[in-house]
């Protein structure tokens, strides 16, 4: 496992004050008995108390362990140790872990194997479970053929019931949408969030939480200022697309059914994806990452571009707000890896199953013309009308603009609008200095392109 850089280590902090506290510990002075091997880094941190805290970080994960009573996770000691190592590799000598660290690591490996996630060595946690409410499997006893068949039949029955419940929810949503357009949207902007909560909650009860969240988002769209009716009706249109497709669920093929389930908020479980999904091995370039807050969790999207296949892929993690998952998939890196694709007509989402080498810095593949990037997205939208985000990697575009209106320009003189705050806009202008730069962005359906990274002066800047 590679040593994280400072930015990657700092990204593990649960909040800003923890990071500041950890920064004070990221010096050699308070540490004793520190060391690292290819799996972990460990040490004893002298604090205000008599007994030093025993700290260890499992880099495959990453996972943190500390004997301090802090409820922050990771605590400042674990984070400080990681930061110290990230800043100065010489500060933490290589060595063999002390017995307690070794047994902790062994325990983690065993638990990982049992749950099947040890295969995810790149550290991507199969975390849609958090959304789905399913429990992560522990050690399963051996089953007889009869028992296996029984449990498969039970699972199929459960799935059939859920399809029915979602379909019932969609039927209610159909009626609700119909009422909206019958009455008209004239004074919808004056309605508060409460107006949407009931329909949203019913969809959650019907086990279609993503549809529920989409209904709740209407409240914000109705108050989004100039041009809101267009965005609002487009959002209604997208909801209706889902509703009308659900009415035909039984007739559709498996891939389309999977798309509908995902968009209703019932994603295929990681275990199932790992068991049945198609694999592809490639040298995956990390184009960029975006974060969005979704109900108490942060959705972290990592966009990949396969160097040999030209495939675009998405690693989606749900993490605690403020925390980032594995640093292996860091923008500007490339790694030879096997990924497993989620089901769907044109699915972007993958799980990283196995990494075949160390991640290393690399310049990502990119399009030359904005027109080509837009066409690729159109083609994908034609196959998957539910596509909500799409990565764009440009080799040479010039940012232009002024406060409130930013865009990028290619060599052909074509442009696409950028959807960013003014601070980011000026950062792009400053980074480019009027010259073409490499830029990656996330194109959001119904919105603009959110810049993710830029490369200027030979260095990647994460925005």
């Amino acid at each position, binding site marked *: 496992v590679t040593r994280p850089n*400072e930015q990657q280590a*700092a990204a593990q902090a649960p909040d800003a*004050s923890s*990071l*500041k506290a950890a*920064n*004070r510990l990221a*010096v050699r*002075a308070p540490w004793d008995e520190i060391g690292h091997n290819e799996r972990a880094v460990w040490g004893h941190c002298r604090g205000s108390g008599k007994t030093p805290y025993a700290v260890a970080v499992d880099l495959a994960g990453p996972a943190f362990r500390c004997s301090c009573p802090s409820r922050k996770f990771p605590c400042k000691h674990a984070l400080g140790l990681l930061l110290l190592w990230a*800043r100065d590799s010489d500060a933490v000598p290589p060595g063999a872990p002390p017995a307690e660290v070794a047994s902790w690591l062994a325990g983690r490996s065993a638990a990982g194997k049992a749950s099947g996630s040890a295969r995810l060595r790149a550290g991507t946690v199969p975390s849609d479970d958090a959304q789905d409410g399913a429990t992560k499997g522990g050690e399963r006893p051996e089953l007889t053929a009869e028992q296996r068949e029984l449990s498969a039949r039970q699972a199929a029955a459960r799935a059939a019931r859920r399809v029915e419940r979602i379909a019932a929810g969609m039927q209610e949503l*159909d009626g609700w*949408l*119909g009422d909206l*357009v*019958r*009455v*008209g*949207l*004239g004074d919808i902007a004056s309605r508060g969030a409460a107006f949407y909560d009931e329909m949203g909650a019913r969809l959650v009860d019907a086990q279609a939480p993503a549809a529920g969240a989409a209904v709740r988002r209407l409240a914000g769209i109705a108050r989004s200022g100039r041009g809101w*009716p*267009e965005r609002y*009706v*487009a959002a*209604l*249109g*997208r909801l*209706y*697309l889902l509703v*009308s497709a659900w009415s035909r669920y039984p007739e559709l093929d498996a891939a389309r059914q999977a798309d509908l389930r995902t968009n209703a908020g019932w994603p295929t479980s990681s275990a199932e994806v790992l068991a049945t999904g198609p694999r592809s091995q490639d040298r995956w370039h990390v184009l960029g990452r975006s974060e969005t807050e979704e109900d108490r969790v942060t959705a972290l999207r990592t966009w990949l571009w396969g160097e040999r296949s030209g495939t675009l892929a998405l690693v989606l993690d749900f993490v605690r707000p403020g925390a980032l998952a594995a640093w292996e998939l860091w923008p500007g890196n490339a790694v030879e890896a096997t990924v497993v694709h989620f089901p769907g007509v044109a699915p972007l989402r993958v799980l990283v199953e196995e990494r075949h080498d160390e991640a290393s810095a690399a310049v990502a593949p990119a399009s030359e013309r*904005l*027109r080509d990037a*837009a066409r690729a997205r*159109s083609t994908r*939208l034609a196959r998957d*009308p539910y596509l909500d985000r799409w990565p764009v990697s440009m080799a040479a575009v010039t940012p*232009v*603009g*002024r406060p409130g*209106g930013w*865009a990028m*320009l290619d060599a052909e*003189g*074509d*442009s*696409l609008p950028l959807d960013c705050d003014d*601070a980011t806009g*000026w*950062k*792009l*202008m*400053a*980074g*480019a*200095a*009027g*010259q073409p730069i490499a830029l990656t962005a996330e194109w959001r359906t*119904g919105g603009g392109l959110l810049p993710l990274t830029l490369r*200027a002066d030979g*260095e990647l*800047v994460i925005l």
Partner: protein
Amino acid sequence: VIGDLDGSAWSEVLSAALLGTDRRPWSGATVPGLPELPAGPEGLLQGAAMLTTWREAGRTVAPPPFSPPLRPTADPRPVLGQEPRRLLATLIRDRRQAAILDEWLDRAAASGSRLPGALLADLVPFVGLDDEARLGRLRTLGGPLLAWLAALNPDWAPLARFDGTELSLDQWSEASDEARLALFRRFRADDPAGSAALLAEVLPGEPAASAVALTQSLSEQLSDVDIELLESALDDRRKRVRAVSMELLGRLPTSPRAQRLADLAVPAISVTGRWKHTLTVGELPPADDAQERDGVVGSSSERFGVAVSGAALDSWTVRLGHSPADLVSWARASSDPKAGALLVAWAMAARRQRDRIWVGALLDAGVSPDGGLLSVLDPVDADRRLAGAVSAAELGSLPALIGACTDPWGPQASSAAIATISRIVGRIDLSKGPDAALTHAAQALQSSLVPLALRLDPRTDATPLVEGVSDAPSPAFWLGAVAGSGSALGLAGILAFRAALAAAFEPMPTSATPLRSLS
């Protein structure tokens, strides 16, 4: 033709949805190449779904909304090193003390390198746009790229400060106040004597604010060639111009004003006695217009202060026939209450006239050192003397000493500070019941530790103090200021960060650290 190219069907869907199909029934629509959009509310929703998807899939490039701006002038400087940039990123991310930022800016601006644009864009809002000294260093560091950005971004206009390089002296009368000042500074750097002559010519016609700024700008490269101009400015009709001129003349002991004030002040002091000398302070002559012109006005003690601090220091030794060391020690020994004022005024004169012998005499006689006095001495001597004063300081006097010496401290004084604070901290026990005076003094020291950390030699080892605090009778009281608490860095943390800063900019000589003496 396929689809709703002119957006007319979409507009119909929008207005129907806003109005509601109850009020105006939706009768459907036909869009070339798409299935027929049916009537009724369900049909309206279906139309919205279809057109939204069609429009989204059709989003493509547009002609540029703005033409790209002209490129900035190329900056030939190398990019600032990795480590200094990393430290800056830490400063910005952790919102560290602004004073550390100043040190970073000083070093970065002096390094002769440039900052990558994206980092520069992060730095500007962090530095802010209200401190002119910081803006100057930011402009140096940012170079042509920053000037280009400042011209594009109205919020950054203060960074586009005019530097006068495109102007010539012929354009003096048309140039703005700011441009004239920049032009004058540039001219003065090349030709100090010529600049004084120019200022003498233009000063009467300048508006008050600009006249003050131009006169004030003489403080750089101030020399005897400026005396004639400054003497004549004492008759300027504007009070602030006169005040600035007097202040600058106070730095020039060969000026006629310094001689006139000596004529006034020296006779007021008398030394009597053959074996045991006694220094007596008398009165100045009665006020008159000539004294007023030299600023000798106000109460008798104010007049005395102005006259003594403005008099050429040499005149005391020459006219009274005694060395500075003798005069200072007799003034210290004098029972005359006015002798205290005399010492204060002498110290002021020694600072302004940068007279090493007088500063040495004053410090030898036990006058408490301050930044102004120490800056006159050579750095090794200043360091040694400050170390002596710090080592002798106690809880009551140390905070004032720290407050008075704001320039960077040398290595000896820095180590002495750590040792002295450890010693003092080890003796203070705040748990023995309420003691308002002790608590107050301890708080004064506690709150001076962070400012001190910004001045100490960054190589100073703070470990003795960190250990001293944990063994002290009241460790909790000191811990935050020494080792940091929450997000604030304490003395030890600031020193560690500054040591990293010094190391990151290593090839650059640090002016703050004196060379080791050979003795």
